[in-house]
């Protein structure tokens, strides 16, 4: 046979809850219960408020930079719930736009504020919480998720390494090395790519010539699928299947969640300079909170009273979290040697002593947060 087809593939797209709040009941089978949906809606509402307050903190000089999650809550919420229901045993390697996945699996809400206020202790993960520090170098952390998946297999533990990253990150070689490792070494890993259409000012069409981001995993032997990333049902179903595939078959899954960054890239950015308001308006209609609320209202599970209650609750929670984050005593200058090594070498002991005993070293903390560097 001189010519044959060596390989064909297709990428399926899943949407279960559409933007009008209509559910595909067949596909929705064995996914979220009413209780789950209420829970996720509440969590997404709290996260939305957290974002707004973080934005205000930055604008008033109380925080360095902050990347809003606004519009992208559904994927991390649904994936987060899947992992929470498994007892939060899976390992999460995050970037910075999946707060809910972390909150639902044990990361205190003050941690992320503390981090963006410019305090290393914000990345200190409580014991027993299987989450890595946020990775700011784009695309470097999926490899850590691969290491976690590899270790789970090595230790014969029922855990999965999960990486969250953006569409832009898929252009980094590291992400491809991670995908290749996971496929070639047959590791329990899930790659969750939030395609929010933009990487700062670069549209996803400039990032790649692929028709989908999902298909990038095909070459590495992943199961690949695209979901409506603003649909908690589809994200839940696909993520749960991915976790099971990782556990049972040691086959990685690459999930592309189609979503949209409704806010600026970070507080250091002004997206009006490079994208049309019409596009934003179009996507605002597909907001995960709107459609989830419609669905709940249609089912008689939600009303204005409950909405008022959750808004009040969100305010209460977030203001307490802000108070906690801001209330932590500033680190002492001489502390900065402490976390250099497990055992501090003599030379650093000497440097620390100098810092503690010299006039310069004991300078009181007068720096204001407004003077902090801005991450891109």
């Amino acid at each position, binding site marked *: 046979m001189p010519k044959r087809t060596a390989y064909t593939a297709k990428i399926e797209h899943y949407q279960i809850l559409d933007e009008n709040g209509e559910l595909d009941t067949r596909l929705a089978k064995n996914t979220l219960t009413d209780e789950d949906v209420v829970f996720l809606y509440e969590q997404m509402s709290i996260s939305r408020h957290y974002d707004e307050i973080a934005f205000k903190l930055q604008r008033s000089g109380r925080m360095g930079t902050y990347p809003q999650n606004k519009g992208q809550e559904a994927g991390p919420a649904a994936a987060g719930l899947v992992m929470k229901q498994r007892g939060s045993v899976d*390992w999460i*390697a995050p970037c910075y736009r999946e707060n809910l996945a972390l909150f639902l699996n044990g990361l205190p809400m003050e941690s992320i504020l503390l981090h963006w206020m410019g*305090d*290393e*202790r*914000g*990345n*200190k*993960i409580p014991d027993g919480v299987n989450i*890595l*520090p946020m990775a700011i*170098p784009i695309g*470097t*952390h*999926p*490899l*850590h*998720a*691969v*290491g*976690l*998946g*590899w*270790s*789970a297999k*090595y*230790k014969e533990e029922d855990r999965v*390494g999960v990486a969250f990253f953006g569409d832009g990150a898929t252009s980094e*070689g*590291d992400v491809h*090395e*991670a995908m*290749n*490792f996971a496929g*070639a*070494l047959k590791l329990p890993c899930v790659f969750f790519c939030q395609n929010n259409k933009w990487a700062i000012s670069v549209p996803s069409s400039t990032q790649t010539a692929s028709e989908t981001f999902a298909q990038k995993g095909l070459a590495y032997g992943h199961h690949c699928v695209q979901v409506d990333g603003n649909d908690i049902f589809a994200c839940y179903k696909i993520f749960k299947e991915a976790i099971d595939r990782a556990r049972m078959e040691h086959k990685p899954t690459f999930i592309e969640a189609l979503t949209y960054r409704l806010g600026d890239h970070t507080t250091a950015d002004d997206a009006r300079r490079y994208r049309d308001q019409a596009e934003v308006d179009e996507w605002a209609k597909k907001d995960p909170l709107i459609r989830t609320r419609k669905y709940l209202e249609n089912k008689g599970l939600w009303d204005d009273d409950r909405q008022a209650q959750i808004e009040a609750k969100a305010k209460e929670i977030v203001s307490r979290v802000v108070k906690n984050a801001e209330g932590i005593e500033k680190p002492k200058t001489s502390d900065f040697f*402490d*976390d*250099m*090594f*497990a*055992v*501090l*070498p*003599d*030379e650093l*002991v000497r440097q620390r002593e100098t810092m503690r005993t010299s006039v310069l070293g004991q300078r009181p903390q007068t720096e204001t947060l407004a003077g902090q560097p801005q991450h891109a």
Partner: protein
Amino acid sequence: MPTTLEHADLDAMIADLPSREGDRVIQLREAIREAMAHEMRQDKRVFLMGEEVAYYNGAYKVSEGMLDEFGPERIIDTPISENGFAGLAVGAAMYGLRPIIEFMSWSFSLVAADQILNNVPKMLYMSGGQWGCPVVFRGNDGPGGQLGSTHSWSVEALYSNVPGLKIAIPSNPYDAKGLMHTAIRDDDPVFYLESERILADKGHVPEEAYAIPFGRANRTREGEDCTLVSFGRPVHFCEQAADMLAEEGITCDVLDMRTVRPLDSEAIFDSLKKTNRIVVVDQSWPFGGVASEVISQVCEKAFDHLDHQPLRVNSDDVPTPYAKNLEQAFLPNADKIIAAVKKTLG
């Protein structure tokens, strides 16, 4: 909160080391292997991963036979993806394992720069003391084998600039084993640099396990007139130079630093108090390297002991030449060291 390892503890560790004298003569590569295999027998968390480490026994045969003993679960051949397995090791370390990662050559670690320089040494710091990275990265380092410019890096100059790392560079089989034990047991990341030209060097290596503390130099020649400071393969050039100078009645202390991070500056200052002259020999490039660091420290902290300005012998400030004669001319050697010592003596 990290504890402080007192200098006194290191003295005790040094005092406890087995004798360097004996007739259990093996190659330096075998010494490294013995330490790795010993630690792997003791500790299931330790595994070895890299390109060609398993079926091929390692590009330089350091891991020979380890696949047979430990199996493919713990001696792991990887795709050609330095950044890949370096990053995997970070995740594995955070999950409580103790990876040993072999770079076929440290020259190839450059494609893993973000993982090894931007993640590994900063993880503990950036996580508020939460996540250390107890990974040993090891492999062949340094020129001399006519491998051409891109394959002949001495990464110690570049990498020692980064806080949060430990860098061990053994010059002989005895130290190679003891430093590897320490590297694997260390809770922090260690870069272990094997000068490829000396992997076949032989020497007595005790059978038992022993850990040589990091940050303690070893004096291999004793003298009065000049202090020679080096690490890795060029220690041998210093010893040759010292032996030749001794015939002329000029005696030198030769200090083998063994680790450049941490650096045993005290040993250098102590020797300098006696000799008042110093030559630092470093086979990486001169600009902003380990030799320049040693000399800065000497000028800052031991200036009063100097009778002559400190000198250094580095490789020349050009890419490593491919041609054999040029490569030899480029590297430090005994003649260059002798000339430098004589210069310090006026």
